[in-house]
């Protein structure tokens, strides 16, 4: 039997099944206009995110990986509603939050929090740790001052910090400790989901592992759902249950961690994985490395059809004319490519030229 909370905040429609996705993103687009001239006419746009779909199940971690300019950070900001989407739909806990006002969004912020990349610029240097971590309580008008102090100290302890450092300032902490403060702040209101944008990339390698393990433990303990954005493929594999690979504003491949890392199908994913240097004597076998030529093209005027065709060694005419749709070639593993690698036997060939996808 369900008891209605009846506090006017009624957040979870009772008919939602417990395993329904916590976050659903469909057709999400963000174009940043480029304006020019006296009238500030819009002459073109940076197509940062250009139509992506994904879902995140409760208690799971989705990793989003890609190189600079692929739109992964914009995706995080859109999901957090820090940027206004150009098109598409974001559903959190069954509620459409795509165009909610700031005020209306506030009640959802309790459940949806963010951890930022740079532990130096994401903490106000003039505020004590107590004030920083306690801010969410004050903003949401929860608890009394004495209660906040206790709650903050509990959070600091949960995140591996000394609760007695309540009155210290961010500069008194090392980079790893600051990132713990950022995590503690995100956890203050016991959110359901945390979006972390490059949570460890600014940290030294020995400290990265500490933060990765902290995020792991917190997920187990509090049943958190994560969206973790990172460029480091090894870190993403370590933390994620599912992984989405982005290239120039599109998801080119998405799948379960093991399937995606063992049998990557998009040529870009294959090249990306082969480019990661590994700490073993002599480095990688150079013959097995796929060296892509050139840089990532500009998202202002991305290549037509398949956006990867300008750097792809398998590209053919169809890749320049027809955009490949995401197709599920393995269970739970989708790829947007006409000529995928590691293709399981018995799958259909490329979409025919005569019948372009809609």
């Amino acid at each position, binding site marked *: 039997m369900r008891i209605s909370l009846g506090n006017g905040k009624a957040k979870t429609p009772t008919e939602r099944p417990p395993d329904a996705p916590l976050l659903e993103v469909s057709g999400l687009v963000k174009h940043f206009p480029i304006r020019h001239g006296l009238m500030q006419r819009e002459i073109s746009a940076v197509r940062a995110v250009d139509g992506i779909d994904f879902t995140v199940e409760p208690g799971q971690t989705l990793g989003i990986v890609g190189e600079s300019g692929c739109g992964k950070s914009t995706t995080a900001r859109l999901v957090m509603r820090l940027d206004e989407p150009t098109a598409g739909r974001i559903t959190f806990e069954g509620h459409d939050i795509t165009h909610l006002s700031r005020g209306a969004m506030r009640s959802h912020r309790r459940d949806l929090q963010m951890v930022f990349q740079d532990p130096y610029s994401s903490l106000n240097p003039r505020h004590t740790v107590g004030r920083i971590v306690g801010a969410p309580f004050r903003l949401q008008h929860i608890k009394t001052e004495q209660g906040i102090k206790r709650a903050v100290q509990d959070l600091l302890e949960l995140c591996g910090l000394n609760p007695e450092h309540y009155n210290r300032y961010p500069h008194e902490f090392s980079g790893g400790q600051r990132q713990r403060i950022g995590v503690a702040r995100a956890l203050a209101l016991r959110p359901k989901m945390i979006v972390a944008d490059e949570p460890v990339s600014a940290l030294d390698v*020995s*400290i990265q592992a500490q933060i990765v393990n902290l995020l792991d433990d917190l997920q187990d303990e509090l049943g958190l759902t994560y969206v973790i954005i990172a460029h480091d493929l090894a870190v993403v594999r370590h933390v994620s249950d599912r992984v989405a690979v982005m290239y120039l504003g599109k998801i080119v491949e998405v799948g379960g961690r093991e399937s995606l890392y063992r049998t990557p199908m998009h040529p870009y994913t294959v*090249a990306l994985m082969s*480019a990661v240097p590994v*700490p073993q004597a002599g480095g990688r076998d150079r013959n097995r490395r796929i060296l892509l030529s050139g*840089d990532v093209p500009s998202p202002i005027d991305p290549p037509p059809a398949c956006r990867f065709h300008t750097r792809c060694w398998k590209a053919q005419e169809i890749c320049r004319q027809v955009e490949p749709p995401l197709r599920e070639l393995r269970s739970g593993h989708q790829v947007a490519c006409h000529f995928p690698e590691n293709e399981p036997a018995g799958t259909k060939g490329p979409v025919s030229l005569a019948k372009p996808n809609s």
Partner: protein
Amino acid sequence: MSFLEVDDLHVTFSTEDGVVRAVDGLSFGLEQGRTLGIVGESGSGKSVTSLAVMGLHRSARVNINGRILLDGQELVGASPEAVRRLRGRRMAMIFQDPLTSLHPFYTVGRQIDEAYKVHHPKAGRHEARTRTVEMLRRVGIPQPDRRANDYPHQFSGGMRQRAMIAMALVNDPDLLIADEPTTALDVTVQAQILDLIRDLQQEFGSAVMIITHDLGVVAELADDVLVMYAGKSAETGPAESVFNRPQHPYTWGLLSSVPRMDRERQERLVPITGQPPSLIRVPEGCPFHPRCPYAKLNGTRSFDEVPKLRETGEPGHLVACHLEAEVRARVFREEVRPRL
């Protein structure tokens, strides 16, 4: 004597909070045609070392002691003019961020021309430009004669780093120092730049010093490895030996704390506990002892005696650690090896 010989180098900075011992008794040698990878975390002294070699510490608060010999010539205490004549011609440097190390106001070609003309005062405009275009072509910039007239902002990140490399190599230096040359780049571009540095190394035969926090980058490029911690050498030796049979607990920690693409995913990473030390108050004894899980295995030595670099039994492989050889071998075999 090596082509580049650094002997008991100390670099300290006086600050209001006390003396920062950024480099504290570092010694190493580097031969022509070899690549040395210096690896360490922020504050380990790796960049301070490279700037000392290049003579780029300008502050009145810096104090450099010890010896730095480039082809037999002493650089510590040499006149700024003498070092300036070497810099750019005999030794050159590539920095982490190519956008801040190229001048935004001048074309890329003009900046490389100038780097050439400084050391070839008799060269005319045409000669310099011919050389510039040749170098840009050599580092893989398409249409180099046209791109030489572009400004840095018209280049992508990878192209800028290629241009920086062209500038560093324009005078055919004997020593090239690359300080985190690929840290600001995407992984597919990083692979291109690492390939380029390796090819150029073979072609020019210069001595290369790569400074990085990324053990993978070191493994890709270096013949020899120097692991720094708190301004000191923790471990040094041939790359094959250091990666296959690492000896220092700090190196063990570094290797087991990074998730690896070439291995099965571990359930849990094994981080190094604690934080890197303050360089104003470096711990007594072995600087790594507060974070070392094995510090107590040999009484109080780690707590009150600074370990010296000593032989490990492998040729050229030295370690600064108090652990007895048998104990080290056992710990490595039983505890460290299984999780690497």
